[in-house]
């Protein structure tokens, strides 16, 4: 009897669970869903914009605070966010005007003091921002809304620097009146922090006094951490969440075919490439003919198919498509026969070559496919997979001794052209994965950054692009993958950002009255 009872009880519990699994949506008076839940893969760890460069943190910070300038996702141009306007007097002198009446979450009004505090006081103290702060020589406050910057070196793209997410403007008053841990949460964005549950979710509530954006109808924005792409998909289908970040490529058709769901896509600005360690003199990769043979012999289409299920735009150029001064160069086209011939000339049959990459899913997929492709030419690729930090360290350490031959990596630049070269290509750049060390290239990079005439700039950058990819063959650019979001049908204001800091500032879901 007892047993029967307990079984019944268990069944009842199960039944009640299954019912509660799909709670009905709560709707505002205007017919909008009260709470939008966004599923993301990674953990939110840090509300302070200056303490992090992780995109997950930046996505949420982007909802709560604003930048001086930001990419307009409609026009893809750099425009003022907190700035009303700016003017470059000459490459070292810039004047700026803030928008009027912008309120922080603590009720204070944005003025030049807050900007000065952020740029001149906080930024030099943080490693993520110190290099930006170092560009500024003096900060001259003109009045509450106008200020002037004098730069150490001329920089025609300085407005792009201000779009760095770590330079979000925080409230000076907040830092004076509360703990730093709380003050960093006070921004000007349409959302305020409500609850942070580490490893699980972050809830934001609407900031009704926001003037920069049309205040959305949504009352709450919750970012929920669901690491598995498949689990995120299920949650979306179940109605547990409204938006999912980076759905698995295998779910794209499901998202497109389900009338309740939508697939949002955008070409990303991340350049995925096969890099050669140019400084490894012991290895055949220091031979430009070998590099050219690899470039000719690799079927990028197959790589794209293996790594992203075909959802990426093939690259012929190191320079990202939507970055400034992109030039349609031919690159090195796929030619397996020529490659085979060249490999044979070089005596590559039975060649052992080592490839290092990180444990990111698409990189390992690219690596295994590359291994398969090169084995056709008799080349044995051994793959070493490491954590991203280890890869970065290995790739940026002294190229002559690191022992790296091939690497699969990626670079996500900002919008301005200089980003494409300053760090990953310049001989002293911090992320010089291919160990490019060429005076001429350095000169071209410097020239491009200092040139004010757009036409001349275009020439310089075109030359750079051809030189790197076609002549030097420092790397084989593979693809810029498609960025995706999955949403419930009817979600608006969920915007993909090519630089990966997607925007949810005005996310809404109209469900009808």
């Amino acid at each position, binding site marked *: 009897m007892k047993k029967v009872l307990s079984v019944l009880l268990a069944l009842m519990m199960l039944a009640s669970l299954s019912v509660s699994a799909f709670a009905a949506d709560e709707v505002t008076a205007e017919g909008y869903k009260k709470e939008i839940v966004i599923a993301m893969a990674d953990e939110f760890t840090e509300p302070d914009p200056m303490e992090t460069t992780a995109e997950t943190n930046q996505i949420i910070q982007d909802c709560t605070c604003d930048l001086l300038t930001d990419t307009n996702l409609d026009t893809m141009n750099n425009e003022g966010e907190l700035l009303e306007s700016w003017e470059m007097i000459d490459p070292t002198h810039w004047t700026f005007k803030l928008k009027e009446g912008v309120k922080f979450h603590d009720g204070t009004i944005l003025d030049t003091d807050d900007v000065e505090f952020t740029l001149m006081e906080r930024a030099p103290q943080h*490693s993520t921002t110190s290099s930006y702060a170092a560009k500024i020589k003096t900060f001259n406050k003109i009045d509450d809304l106008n200020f002037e910057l004098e730069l150490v070196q001329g920089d025609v793209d300085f407005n792009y620097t201000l779009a760095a997410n770590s330079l979000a403007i925080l409230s000076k008053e907040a830092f004076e009146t509360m703990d730093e841990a709380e003050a960093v949460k006070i921004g000007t964005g349409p959302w305020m922090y409500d609850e942070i549950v580490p490893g699980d979710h972050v809830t934001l509530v609407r900031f009704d006094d926001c003037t920069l954006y049309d205040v959305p109808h949504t009352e709450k924005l919750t970012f929920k951490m669901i690491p598995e792409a498949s689990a995120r998909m299920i949650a979306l289908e179940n109605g547990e969440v409204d938006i999912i970040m980076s759905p698995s490529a295998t779910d794209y058709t499901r998202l497109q075919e389900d009338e309740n769901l939508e697939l949002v896509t955008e070409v990303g600005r991340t350049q995925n490439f096969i890099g050669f360690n140019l400084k490894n003199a012991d290895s055949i990769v220091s031979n430009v003919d070998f590099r050219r043979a690899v470039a000719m012999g690799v079927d990028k289409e197959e790589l794209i198919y293996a790594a992203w299920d075909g959802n990426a735009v093939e690259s012929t150029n190191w320079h990202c498509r939507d970055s400034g001064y992109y030039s349609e160069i031919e690159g090195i086209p796929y030619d397996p026969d020529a490659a085979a011939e060249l490999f044979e000339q070089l005596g590559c049959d039975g060649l052992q070559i080592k490839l290092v990459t990180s444990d990111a899913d698409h990189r390992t997929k690219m690596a295994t496919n590359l291994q398969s492709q090169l084995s056709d030419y008799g080349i044995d690729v051994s793959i070493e997979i490491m954590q991203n930090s280890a890869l970065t*360290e290995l790739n940026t350490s002294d190229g002559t001794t690191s022992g790296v031959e091939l690497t699969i990596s990626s670079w996500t630049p900002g919008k301005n052209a200089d980003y494409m070269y300053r760090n990953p290509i310049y001989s002293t750049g911090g992320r010089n994965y291919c160990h490019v060390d060429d005076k001429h290239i350095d000169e071209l990079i410097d020239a491009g950054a200092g040139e004010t005439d757009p036409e001349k700039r275009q020439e310089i950058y075109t030359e750079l692009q051809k030189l790197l990819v076609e002549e030097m063959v420092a790397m084989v650019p593979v693809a810029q993958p498609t960025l995706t979001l999955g949403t419930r049908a009817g979600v608006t204001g969920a915007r993909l950002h090519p630089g990966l800091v997607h925007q949810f500032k005005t996310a809404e879901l109209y469900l009808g009255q």
Partner: protein
Amino acid sequence: MARYIIRRLLLMIPVLICVSFVVFFLMDLAPGDIVSQMAPADATPEQIEMLREEMGLNGSVLQRYGRYLWNLLHGDMGTSLSLKRPVMEVFIERLPATLKLAFASIVIALLISIPLGIAAATHHRTWLDGSSVVLSMISVSMPAFWLGLLLIFAFSYKIKLFPSGGSGSFKYLILPALTLGTEQAGNLTRITRSSMLDVIRQDYLRTARAKGVSEKQVIRKHALKNALIPIITVLGSTLGNAFGGAVAIETVFAWPGIGRLTVAAINSRDMTLATGCIIMFTLMLNLTLLIVDIAYAYVDPRVKARYSK
């Protein structure tokens, strides 16, 4: 008894220090460090060096360990390098999820294994015994994370009854607890069965029967209490392991437990967090084992006598 406990607690200190030493040095050996990960993609070498000092990662490994140990002995586990918050705070935040999963799975494991183990022992050499042996053997031979995947496939993909991952309300707990519980149940069933079989042949059960104790009572009262010691031993280490050893299951179900936190910390080369987590974990395991040893004393008066000596 009190002296015994104090002695055991004191003995934990050198063990914990050794653990911190081992983990710290292993982490130092690992290629890559957190600085290159934390630095912005366009960081200059100077910026990286600045960050390194900011994080207190300058100096030789011995110097760093010395500093770490000094703070540790003062009860300070340091600040997580990646999360920029005190390690203890981060750890405590994750603790409830871990404990929830650990205890839920143990409850499930006990609900399955104790009755099954007893039934197998009392129905020795029958089909029931045979199938319990086979089932428990399969459960210990199965990669638990694989069972988790199968459960997700069945219960989240096919019949959309439970969420496939994350934490939150009670329904999130069911699948991971069931997975971990099943894994533990295998071992517990085996140990319950064999220790019951051992006890069942003891003379004192015949004494109990001879004085008219019903068979049910003989098993539940007289036999079970005697069979408990090995069961408690296994239970203790199982529970201890569930605190941080269920990484794969936590990963499968995206459960925000300590195990995954530790692996993430190791992966991001967050030395303080990784070392701190593993120290805390070892402490929890050791405390569990101590509690188990104390529990013996309540189950078996002979053990209690030994402790007081």
